[in-house]
């Protein structure tokens, strides 16, 4: 038997408004509600709602044989609750089918595992609570922000009680082996590592509408044929991608929805193939080998490393500065400050400052609302400067209150 494991990432950051140096000390409202609402509305209408409808249709048509997983960040869920409750309702409908698994991750889609274990655990807990409250499920499999992964993360998640983790199928870690098996990290032979089949995933996510691609146009029978070729040489096929692939990155005109509509039927034609969610994969298939990753890896860019978020001195400066506030923020007695601070930990803010391919203009630009990475940095730092000012004021206030009670 070979199982296809679909996981879709759903995320929206709290984007900052344009915040100049003149606002520091006066304006403590940092987020661009209008832009966040506009983006969410657009993505909801182009992707979340139509894609959810289609997933529901497929699950019903195949009577439980089509199964999928989502990882939805806390910030995305908050924005849906606030701006588009209909999207929450549609995810809830999917959850009720019993064919959909929700994965655990950091609430704020942050890089906290790299900077603060305490904050990492706090965010994972908050996310789990949110998933439980909305979808009545407790996640047992973890996916870290942007599939950032190494041995240390696996070991840490194991102690937190997770059964397994998703990651990028790295050529160097697989070392010639197939990504189509469950692996285990060096520390344990039972903790499951599910590597992404990046070739087949990216055929859908990135190449689907590329007319310069030799395989264009990609049809469901063709893709199913590629999947079926794995029969006998693999137990799982991990297709991991952004949910926005459907309708937002790949427009409806490209035929992406029709492709998806036909795909399960084509794959299930073969009696030895089925769909499973990550926890079902882990329950059914044993680990088949060690997956050894020391340096942090991710699913981003060609480098598959952290350089998209902490690759230049601006990004380092910004992220170190925000994490340096953790102790003071947490010792202050202000849930508002803590919430604002945590929203500023979202990885997107650092992604906007990426200068890697800036001069060429590219995918990073597509995902950024700033003209240049410098704008992104300046805006962020101005906001952090104001947050520091607020924090200082809060600490003074608390110190005074303490003096008075004494």
């Amino acid at each position: 038997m070979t199982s296809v494991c679909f996981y879709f990432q759903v995320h929206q950051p709290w984007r900052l408004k344009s915040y100049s140096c003149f606002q520091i000390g006066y304006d403590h409202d940092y987020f661009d509600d209008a832009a966040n609402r506009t983006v969410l509305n657009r993505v909801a209408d182009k992707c979340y709602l139509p894609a959810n409808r289609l997933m529901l249709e497929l699950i019903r048509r195949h009577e439980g044989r089509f199964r999928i997983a989502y990882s939805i960040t806390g910030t995305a869920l908050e924005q849906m609750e606030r701006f588009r409750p209909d999207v929450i309702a549609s995810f809830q409908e999917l959850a009720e089918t019993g064919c959909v698994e929700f994965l655990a991750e950091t609430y704020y889609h942050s890089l906290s595992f790299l900077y603060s274990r305490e904050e990492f655990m706090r965010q994972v807990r908050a996310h789990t609570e949110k998933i439980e409250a909305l979808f009545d499920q407790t996640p047992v499999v973890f996916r870290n922000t942007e599939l950032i992964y190494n041995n240390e993360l696996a070991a840490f998640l194991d102690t937190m009680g997770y059964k397994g983790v998703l990651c990028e199928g790295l050529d160097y870690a697989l070392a010639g082996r197939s990504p189509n098996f469950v692996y285990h990290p060096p520390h344990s032979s039972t903790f499951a590592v599910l590597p992404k089949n990046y070739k087949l995933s990216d055929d859908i996510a990135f190449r689907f509408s590329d007319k310069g691609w030799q395989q264009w146009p990609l049809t469901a029978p063709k893709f199913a044929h590629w999947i079926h070729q794995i029969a006998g040489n693999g137990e799982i096929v991990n297709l991991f991608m952004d949910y926005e692939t459907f309708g937002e990155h790949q427009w409806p005109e490209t035929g992406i929805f029709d492709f998806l509509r036909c795909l399960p039927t084509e794959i299930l034609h073969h009696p030895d193939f089925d769909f499973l969610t990550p926890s079902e994969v882990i329950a059914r298939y044993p680990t088949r080998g060690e997956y050894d990753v020391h340096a942090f890896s991710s699913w981003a860019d060609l480098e598959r490393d952290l350089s998209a978020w902490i690759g230049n001195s601006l990004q380092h400066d910004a992220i170190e500065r925000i994490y340096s506030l953790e102790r003071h923020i947490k010792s202050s007695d202000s849930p508002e400050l803590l919430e604002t601070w945590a929203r500023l930990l979202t990885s997107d803010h650092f992604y906007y400052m990426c200068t890697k391919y800036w001069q060429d203009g590219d995918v990073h630009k597509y995902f950024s609302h700033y003209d240049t990475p410098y704008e992104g940095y300046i805006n962020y730092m101005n906001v952090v400067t104001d947050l520091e000012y607020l924090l200082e004021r809060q600490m003074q206030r608390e110190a005074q209150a303490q003096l008075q009670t004494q």
Partner: protein
Amino acid sequence: MLLSPLSCRDQIIAYKSTQSVSREKDPLMEVLMLGWEFPPLISGGLGVATYGMVKALRASANIRLIVPRSHPSSSLENVRIVGVDRALKEELIREGRAYDLGDLVDDLQRIPLELSSYHSIRALLEETEHPSVMHESHTVKSLTQLGSYFEGHEAYGPDIQRKVYLFSRLADLLSRNLDFKIIHAHDWVTYPAGMRIQARTGKPLVLHVHALETDRAGSEVRNGVYELEHRALRAADSIIAVSEYTRDQLKRHYGIPPHRVHVVHNGIDPRPTQRRTHPFRDKLVVFLGRVTRQKGPEFLLETAQKVVRVYPRVKFVVAGTGDAFIPLLETAAYRKLGRKFLFTGFLDRRRVDELLSMADVYFMPSVSEPFGLTALEAAQFGVPGVLSRQSGAHEVLPALTADFWDTDKYANYIYALLQYNALHDDLARRSREMASRVTWDAAAAKIAQIYRSLILN
């Protein structure tokens, strides 16, 4: 006899001979260049650019450069530099009879009418009497006096239009003894000369746009200089603009279709630079160049006022002078910003370098800046720039840019550069790096390609 393989030395000789053969296959192109300034007699960017360009072009072109004034020390190996002032004295007197001077002298008496669309020239001539030019007798001696007309300190000055006209006639005259296949003219002051020589010889004319009247006098201007540029641009066989920005201006204000315009960014000669500490406790924001309306002094002032509010430990250094200098000084004082400004007046090269080596931010709020060489000079010193978007420099530098009037944005950027070291250091490093890639060799290669295509056609 035993044949031995070629010795090493023979191989070198063989190699050298093929080199010289290939050199012969690709002979230097003969180019007549018309310039207005040349070191050491320079008053602005045009002289620096002409020098850098000619120097790098020597690899592919044989250049004769005619300029109004030359200095005994104006020289460049393999380039013939002809200063009208000296040539008239030396050559015309010596070979006086070789030139047909009659019609020139006749024309000189008709200057006001010669360029009838050239209103400002007429106005100028009606205002002031210049008997030495207008009613000179028909003698060679009078021509030497014409030559001395260019000897003054001012390369431009209030009688610039008369100089332009004289230059066009005299450059045409001097070009008759020169051999060339291409005419390459720099800026409006040499366009009439270029057109005249083009009309006489039928050789292709390349106009090199370093600046437009719309840059200098505002986008709405439609004066005589504008008319002249307009006419020349239409007569040109090829147009070179120093930036995409200028190409856009040519389209917007002169109706020149972009496909007719080649963009060749100026270069800058690499040189070692050093940072040094300065005695001020405040950080330094430097404004460098002529203080004229075009350079946006009012936006400098407005920005300074805003920066000081959020970052008091700063001084704005204004290095340069110009007709907007006194108003700037007075307004700064009036707004009680005097303490925050340092006015240095005009600085020589050495002092400019010294200033740049201490500067924290380079600020160029120009209303319209075709290129902006000073931004590259600052970049060489690792000084990050806050530049007007209406400029060419940001096309080759990783600077922070805003529309020339957007003083809020300028101030936000300057604040960020003063406040956030990581940003300052990153931009400083990248600016330095990029400035080292903007070379005259790269520019010359593009220009040579333009020459080649004109010669082939």
